[in-house]
């Protein structure tokens, strides 16, 4: 059967315009498919990450935009005393855009030593001491740095916040690569005296035995009567709640992914049907020479498989290139979803194109193999 592969390629090449159109259509559809997959994956990573269930986020009650949540910083020490709490990290969040945006800049201010302890970041350039020694220093996530063309030493201003880049970092969590870290006090002072002594949220790291649900209730209970009420959720829940609107949209976009697969199926099937109809007589001649009907079926299947798989591989490669070179993300209310390429996603894309190629070839292949030789030979 392998001996017939050159024949299959030559047949595809004979109608190169049709072949190229089909392959490029398939490539575009798979690029979109992978892109949608990456968005979903980014969303999933936020709500199901390692620390999503073991870290609590304390936010001001009924507030969503980080700008409007103001917790007294001394809540930190109260919470730290609760049993089961390992450490409390105060975080000040500042974003230039609270609504869903593809180019939102999100600042997080943390005490430097806690930043170092609780965030898994790896400096690609710059150094820690320069960051902790300098008031308005910032560590910039690699994706923001790429998008905005930032490197160590650059001054960078958004609204009334001005920072000097003292490091570019990379984190295994894609969403973090879209953040800018500063010192906590700097962000507290940056936007007027109003914010001094308040934080946006408290990140509560639990030890292994604590029950997150119970502790969250306990925290909210403790501040129920206090000056500012709190809402405490696991990090995963917090991010899912914050991104609820986007999640709905992404859930819908998911259907577009299936639509892409349907599109490829009909595109490749149409081309294969056309190619079979063009060659009714040719297939009859091959059968007269002694090609088994099953092999004719195989030839047609190979043809549609090649069309779909070549297109699929190109589309997947394109999406990987696009996603890794642009470091795209979408942010809402200070929470970022990063779109990242991944091996499982790329493999899923290739598998989808292979399966679609096989499906698309089934009916035309069956048809070609069942055609009666004598009547097909009479075919003009």
């Amino acid at each position, binding site marked *: 059967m392998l001996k017939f592969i050159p*024949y299959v390629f030559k047949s595809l090449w004979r109608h190169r315009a049709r072949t190229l159109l089909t392959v490029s259509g398939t490539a575009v559809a798979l690029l979109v498919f992978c892109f949608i997959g990456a968005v979903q994956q980014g969303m999933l990573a936020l709500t199901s990450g390692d620390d999503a269930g073991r870290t609590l986020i304390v936010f001001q009650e009924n507030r969503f935009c980080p700008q409007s949540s103001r917790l007294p910083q001394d809540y930190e020490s109260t919470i730290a005393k609760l049993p089961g709490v390992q450490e409390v990290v105060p975080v000040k969040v500042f974003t230039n855009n609270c609504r869903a945006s593809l180019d939102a800049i999100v600042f997080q201010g943390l005490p430097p030593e806690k930043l170092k302890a609780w965030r898994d970041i790896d400096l690609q350039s710059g150094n820690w001491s320069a960051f902790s020694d300098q008031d308005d220093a910032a560590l910039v996530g690699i994706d923001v740095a790429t998008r905005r063309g930032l490197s160590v030493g650059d001054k960078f201003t958004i609204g009334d916040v001005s920072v000097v880049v003292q490091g570019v970092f990379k984190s295994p969590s894609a969403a973090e690569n879209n953040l800018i870290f500063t010192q906590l006090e700097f962000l507290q002072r940056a936007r007027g005296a109003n914010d001094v002594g308040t934080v946006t949220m408290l990140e509560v790291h639990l030890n292994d035995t604590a029950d997150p649900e119970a502790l969250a209730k306990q925290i909210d209970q403790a501040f129920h009567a206090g000056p500012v009420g709190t809402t405490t959720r696991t990090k995963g829940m917090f991010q899912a709640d914050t991104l609820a609107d986007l999640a709905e949209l992404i859930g819908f976009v998911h259907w577009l992914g299936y639509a892409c697969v349907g599109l490829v199926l009909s595109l490749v099937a149409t081309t294969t049907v056309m190619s079979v109809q063009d060659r009714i007589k*040719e297939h009859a*001649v091959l059968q007269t*020479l002694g090609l088994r009907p099953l092999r004719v079926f195989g030839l047609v299947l190979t043809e549609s498989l090649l069309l779909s798989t070549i297109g699929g591989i190109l589309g997947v490669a394109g999406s990987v290139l696009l996603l890794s070179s642009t470091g795209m993300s979408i942010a809402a209310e200070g929470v970022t979803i990063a779109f990242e390429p991944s091996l499982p996603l790329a493999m899923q894309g290739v598998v989808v194109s292979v399966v679609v190629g096989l499906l698309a070839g089934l009916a035309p292949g069956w048809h070609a193999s069942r055609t009666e030789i004598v009547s097909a030979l009479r075919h003009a």
Partner: protein
Amino acid sequence: MPLIEVIDVSKEYANGEETIRPLDGVSLSIEEGDYVSLMGASGSGKSTLLNLIAGIDQATAGKIIVAGTDITRLSRGKLADWRAANIGYVFQTHNLIPVLTAYENVELPLLLLPMSASERRKRVAIAMEAVDLTSRAKHYPRQMSGGQEQRVGIARAIVSNPTVVVADEPTGSLDDETTEQILQLLSRVNEELDMTLLMVTHDADAGERARRRIRLERGRLMENGKELQTAKLHTA
């Protein structure tokens, strides 16, 4: 024992209410190495009989035994294998594969047989030589004349050294001069390569070239004015 035995073969086509029966219990034996021409009016069933012997059509009734194999009992897949090993088919319009060169077209039937690449090369070279087209090996069908294409078609039919070569009006779409060339070539295939040849033709002159001349008239086979009968001796 004859190489080909057609025994009481009928072929019917249901055409709405009426049934067309181009072959009505015909019988025919062909000896190995013979050259037989089959003539008859248009629509008399010549192609139908040839296609049945070539194993690309199914008889409504009767048996066809070629070199000891009853091909009417083979499954579609087995029949395809049988054709690959036993039949060389020369079409009226050559029917070469347009995306393949002359060489590749001739090589095609060999790809279906268990054969080493070097053996294939040798056989294709011999077949191309036999039709005197060695210099055109790399040409595509569209780069050749009708006569050259038909010669490639003949090379493709003989390359696997088949049990029988069948030709359905092989000169039907060629001019006189080229027709003569092709007929000479077919005679050589029979005489020099010792291949059994069955040729359907319209052209009385072409039919004269064959050693045996058979006519198909109203569903019956005639030779020298007499109807051919079932060769009971052979089938007993």
